[in-house]
């Protein structure tokens, strides 16, 4: 069963999963936070933040990768500080791939969560407040459950995007088998040489299978979340 993919291809599948899950998980909390800031905040620079969040969508992925390389590379201003102070290295590591995917998927996550926040009935939050819940608790026990559909949708988008992200990843962390070679970069490599089509197709199928799994899981989660409202 396992031999329809080569060990190296399996490595790419595993790595892609790891990268996509990490990207999704790591962007979740900041994504919800930023969505809140953008939807509810009234601060100077809100619009700038909005634009910043959308940039990964607007710019060609290669540009995003290049910017990441300049910023988070070994010699980049952020990368060098992170490496020296905290020992966190992104350059040419799978973590870098995850960072690239997280950033590329970030606008999608934020938008989905924002949409949900917009529809939350503020009156319910007020009601929770009168019952003694301070804003943090209101967020945790009322708002968060109510925006679950948006969070799930955002996670799906973020995960799916990470499964397909190629331009920023290969530009930022290259395409090192076992370390940064994700499914999309592996597929890309195969399209660059004669006779690679079959391999590309196999990997594409693997990617689709994973995504179907993720979609089914998300639908299941969403149904569960929805049942909470209409049981």
């Amino acid at each position, binding site marked *: 069963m396992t031999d329809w993919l080569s060990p190296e291809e399996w490595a790419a599948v595993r790595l892609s999963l790891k990268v996509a899950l990490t990207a999704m998980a790591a962007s979740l909390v900041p994504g919800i936070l930023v969505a809140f800031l953008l939807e509810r905040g009234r601060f100077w620079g809100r619009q700038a933040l909005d634009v910043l969040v959308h940039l990964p969508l607007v710019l060609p992925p290669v540009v995003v*990768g290049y910017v990441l390389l300049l910023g988070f590379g*070994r010699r980049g201003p952020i990368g060098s500080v992170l490496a020296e102070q905290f020992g966190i290295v992104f350059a*040419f590591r799978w973590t870098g791939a995850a960072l690239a995917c997280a950033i590329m998927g970030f606008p999608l996550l934020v938008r989905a969560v924002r949409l949900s926040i917009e529809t939350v009935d503020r009156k319910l939050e007020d009601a929770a407040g009168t019952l003694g819940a301070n804003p943090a608790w209101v967020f945790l026990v009322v708002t968060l459950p109510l925006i679950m559909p948006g969070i799930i949708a955002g996670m799906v988008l973020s995960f799916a995007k990470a499964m397909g992200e190629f331009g920023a990843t290969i530009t930022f962390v*290259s*395409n*090192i088998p076992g370390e940064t070679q994700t499914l999309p*970069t592996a597929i890309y490599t*195969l399209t660059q040489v004669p006779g690679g089509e079959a391999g590309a197709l196999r990997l594409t199928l693997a990617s689709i299978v994973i995504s179907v799994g993720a979609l089914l899981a998300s639908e299941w989660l969403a149904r569960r979340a929805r049942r909470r409202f209409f049981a």
Partner: protein
Amino acid sequence: QGKDVVVFAAASLKNALDDTKAAWEAETGDKAVISYAGSNALARQIEAGAPADVFLSADAEWMDHLAGKDLIRPESRTDLPGNALVLVAPKESAVRVSLEPGLDLSPALGAGRLAMANVDAVPAGRYGKAALEKLGAWEGVKNEVAQAENVRAALLLVSRGEAPLGIVYRSDAAVDPNVRIVATFPEGSHPPVVYPAALTKGTTNPKAASFLAFLRSAKAKAIFEKQGFTVLNRPNA
């Protein structure tokens, strides 16, 4: 058993280099990992401190760029097997063109496009543009050129019948059953197609030199020739 040799190589070399790597690994028992991407991306990554030991570029330009920044070891630079540039057409096409000075591709193109790799950025595109200029055909077709992201994509356009003509490497054209090689560009019409290889300045892996040396060996030569590359294998001037 030390660290693996990390090779940054132009994506178009994948087939030949994968085989070469396997042979080298079998012979030495050492291991190499190869990261395939566009030469430009790889060069920029080396600039940014990528942990590459060996760099194989698709053309001289990016290698020169790194050399200018003192990021490779000039003494190790070698030009690896090159390639020939050919004009291709879909296999059912009956078009005949002979690539001589005074060339005019318009009749052969008709209303179609000439598929090439990006003529500013991608080596195969630049070589093709140079050749067409040399043959006096560039001005006539330059507005008809469909520039693909890379030479494989250009080949695909011809192979799918989207474009009636295309300029690609012979190594790619030879194995695509859907295209026919119409003609090969004369060697002098464009700068020689070579793949410069070199050790990076930052490499600390002693096995990197061994890998680079192996690329120049007869075994590697055979592998490259099997994949349709022309072996030049001459030390850089």
